[in-house]
């Protein structure tokens, strides 16, 4: 009988109610494309795992990312126009790069993608966000530039760069009711991003509840711990045994290291396949996942203000250190005040508009 031939597993697996989903990926923020390059390094899952249907339960995924696309020019851009016209439903919008402040300009542009057929002028990245965000099932900010502004939003910058949530609003919700999903990191840790994307695809397929996010809109299971809490050099810290210079495999908290107050899982997860990272392999933590990056961590190679206190009082465990750290953690979890919309540049660079 035909029914007996059906494998048992097929009875337990639910096909995704959504058959196909598109991922529109804009790299044309103020970016280095490092996050797109980063995801090609991911293996948990890999990009081909997701695209070739290697993971059960997911809808068919179509990726439109300029770094990997087969198509060029208009053939590539047609998906953007289709999405704008509501013909590409559902889609997830991924933004890579800081959002510049185009309102500062009387003419010209800071960042653009494609050309407007009517004016012959480039279409700004901000314009694309305005067109596509309201139509997207979910909007994901990939990397610290897109999440919080990052390097290009440094003090003294001429572009007025900011993060996506500064641009769309921190309480912005997609048409499906999802907040902006922030996956910070400079660049984003490969598996952190692909895993977040996988979670959202599971959610689209009805196989996962609402993605759990913290106040900075980060997935809680990835960013709920500090660098220090996941570092294999923390044992030296506990013993009060600190590296005095970079020729050491001991705890480098005195050498310009912000790990105790930075939300990041890299020392524990490694960079790829468990290899690499930052403090665990001799690299100072410069706080690159944080809203306060880079300004609140510079100069990177100086001892952080809190480090001396906590390092000196290492014998005293408990509440004092934790509360001291929590003050600093709150500070570095906030962006500097000049990352905002409006017609005036407040980064310290002159002119204030163009």
């Amino acid at each position, binding site marked *: 009988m035909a029914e007996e031939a059906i494998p048992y597993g097929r009875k337990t697996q639910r096909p995704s109610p959504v058959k196909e989903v598109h991922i529109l990926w804009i790299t*044309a923020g103020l970016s280095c494309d490092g996050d797109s390059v980063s995801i090609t390094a991911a293996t948990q899952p890999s990009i081909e795992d997701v*695209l070739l249907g290697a993971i059960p339960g997911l809808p068919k995924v179509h990726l439109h990312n300029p770094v990997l696309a087969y198509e060029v020019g208009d053939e590539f851009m047609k998906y953007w126009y289709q999405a704008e016209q509501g013909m590409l439903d559902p889609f997830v919008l991924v933004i890579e790069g800081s959002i510049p402040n185009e309102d500062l300009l009387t003419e010209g542009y800071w960042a653009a993608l494609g050309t407007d057929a009517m004016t012959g002028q480039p279409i700004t990245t901000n314009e694309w966000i305005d067109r596509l965000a309201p139509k997207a099932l979910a909007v994901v900010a990939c990397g610290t530039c897109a999440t919080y502004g*990052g*390097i290009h939003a440094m003090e003294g910058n001429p572009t007025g760069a900011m993060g996506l949530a500064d641009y769309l609003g921190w309480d912005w919700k997609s048409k499906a009711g999802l907040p902006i999903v922030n996956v910070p990191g400079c660049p984003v840790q490969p598996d952190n991003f692909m895993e977040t994307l996988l979670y959202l695809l599971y959610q689209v397929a009805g196989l996962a509840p609402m993605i759990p996010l913290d106040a900075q809109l980060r997935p809680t299971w990835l960013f709920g711990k500090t660098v220090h809490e996941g570092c294999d050099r923390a044992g030296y810290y506990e013993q009060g045994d600190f590296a005095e210079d*970079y020729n050491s495999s001991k705890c*480098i908290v005195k050498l310009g290291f912000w790990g105790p107050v930075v939300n990041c899982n890299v020392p524990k997860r490694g960079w790829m396949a468990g290899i*690499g990272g930052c403090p665990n*392999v*001799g690299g100072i933590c410069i706080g690159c996942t944080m809203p306060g990056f880079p300004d609140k961590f510079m100069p990177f190679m100086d001892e952080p203000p809190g480090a001396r206190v906590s390092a000196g009082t290492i014998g005293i465990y408990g509440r004092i250190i934790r509360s001291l750290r929590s003050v600093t953690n709150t500070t570095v979890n906030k962006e500097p005040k000049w990352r905002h919309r409006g017609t005036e540049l407040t980064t310290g660079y002159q002119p204030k508009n163009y």
Partner: protein
Amino acid sequence: MESTQTITQTPTQKRTLVDMNWDPITRIVGSLGIYTKIDFANREVAECYSTSSIFRGYSIFMKGKDPRDAHFITSRICGICGDNHATCACYAQNMAFGVQPPAMAEWIVNLGEAAEYMFDHNIYQDNLVGVDYCENMVRETNPSVWEKAKQTDCPNFEAHGYKKISDIMTALNPFTGEFYRETLQVSRYTREMFCLMEGRHVHPSTLYPGGVGTVPTVQLFTDYMVRLMRYVEFCKKVVPLHDDLFDFFYEALPGYEEVGRRRILLGCWGSFNDPDVCDYKYENMEKWGNSMFVTPGVVVDGELVTTSLVDINLGIRILLGSSYYDDWETAETFVKTDPLGNPVDQRHPWNQTTTPRPQKRDFDNNYTWVMSPRWYHEGEKGEGSKYLALDTGGGPIARFWSTALAGKVDIGYIKATGHSVKIYLPKTAMKDEVEFEWKIPKWSNAIERNRARTYFQAYAAAAALHFCEKALAELHAGNTKTWSAFKVPDEAIGCGFHEAVRGVLSHHVVIREGKIANYHPYPPTPWNANPRDVYGTPGPYEDAVQNTPIFEENGPENFKGIDIMRTVRSFDPCLPCGVHMYLGNGKTLETHHSSMFGSHK
């Protein structure tokens, strides 16, 4: 997508030109658009404009910052070769701070950078540019070439296992192709090698001025070495595979050597410092530059003009093209003479002042965020022609050409012969030892840029074998120091020279009162992708694209522009440095047409 216009050049000559635009160009890093006018009757590109659309302002927001932060910040310029920037910044910091890292640190940096070349050339060659040569693409653009590929045996079948050329093309199809997926995996374990040495890809965590924080242990080098040997075995397959593929294009499409061809004007700033010689003192820069494991040099019409980093440094000029910036002719001169007493030009990066002036894109006036880097060569006739529009050819072809002619590198695994470079790869698990020889090609064109990229994958692996031996010797001798202390001086200047994956890279820093007073990085893409300069000298893409004949079989209605794409991608464009270009030629045409870009879709 297209519009047709008839342009009268002379009363007796008529050309029908079709606007063909591709914006964005995909499968590169960064934003690039190509706008062309194509003469389909004569099968050639008549005009080409090229534009990119991002400005970020590194030189501006770095002012006043702590000079020790420079490598952390500048790494973020590029998302595929950020570590090249970080490394180059550390070289400049080492000079400015007067510090020499321990030998072990140099070997670790060299191993990291070698892994970067292995990774980046690999992913670009076969996951990005390779798609231009895959079955799907060839069938769409040149069905007759596909038919021929099905009939053509691979001469190197034994080495790579693909019987017909068409089998290679099928294996290169995105995601479904077997070789495409294999190279994605290779790009991962090579990045693991990178992470062993520099912590994280692509923005390293363990690099510092004065050395590295990487802990040199037996395990570190074991982990690197086992992956390296896997890659060495992969090279024995990948080099013959690409030789077969590229030779086939010359054979299948006679005249294909003209695609992307331009005058031989190549720059290489050298790679891999030798800690036995390199003390980072400017005064000794010519000497330690000549001991690099990729020899710096400028190649003009096939002749090696210099290998001195001092000559290279002093010859750099940044000219204003049609860009959105104010001139700095009357701005402050930060560095009047170099530490040897040579005068430094106002148009040198040490003296550049960057002031952005955003405005409408106007192809008849200003349309670009990038300026035109040139290299001043006294030997040329005529003032304008002394400013050479050097290109990097995407990196490897210039590195090989310079290294081959200089004949200096001789490390067992690699030997520069004066006319070629020999690369020796030892026995691996499944394959015997192999010697490859990169020979100076007849042309600087798209195919040879791509071929050199494959050979440089083997070069980087061979160099890494040497660096591993050197590092292990230090380790076994107990020399595990990786970092030298330094103090940031109140006043100093520094420069760093390196080869980013896709070509020349320089960083110039001026320090005053202990802070950055001026900082100008010059990555490869501005050299390759710049507009005409003030003397009217076209940038390298201009030459390359506008001399490109059209071999594609499609007419205007379904034209893919594959020959143009292959030309542009042969330079391995990496646009995050904020490049805008204007590739205009055809003076007669220009005066007759009104700007129509974007007025049709």
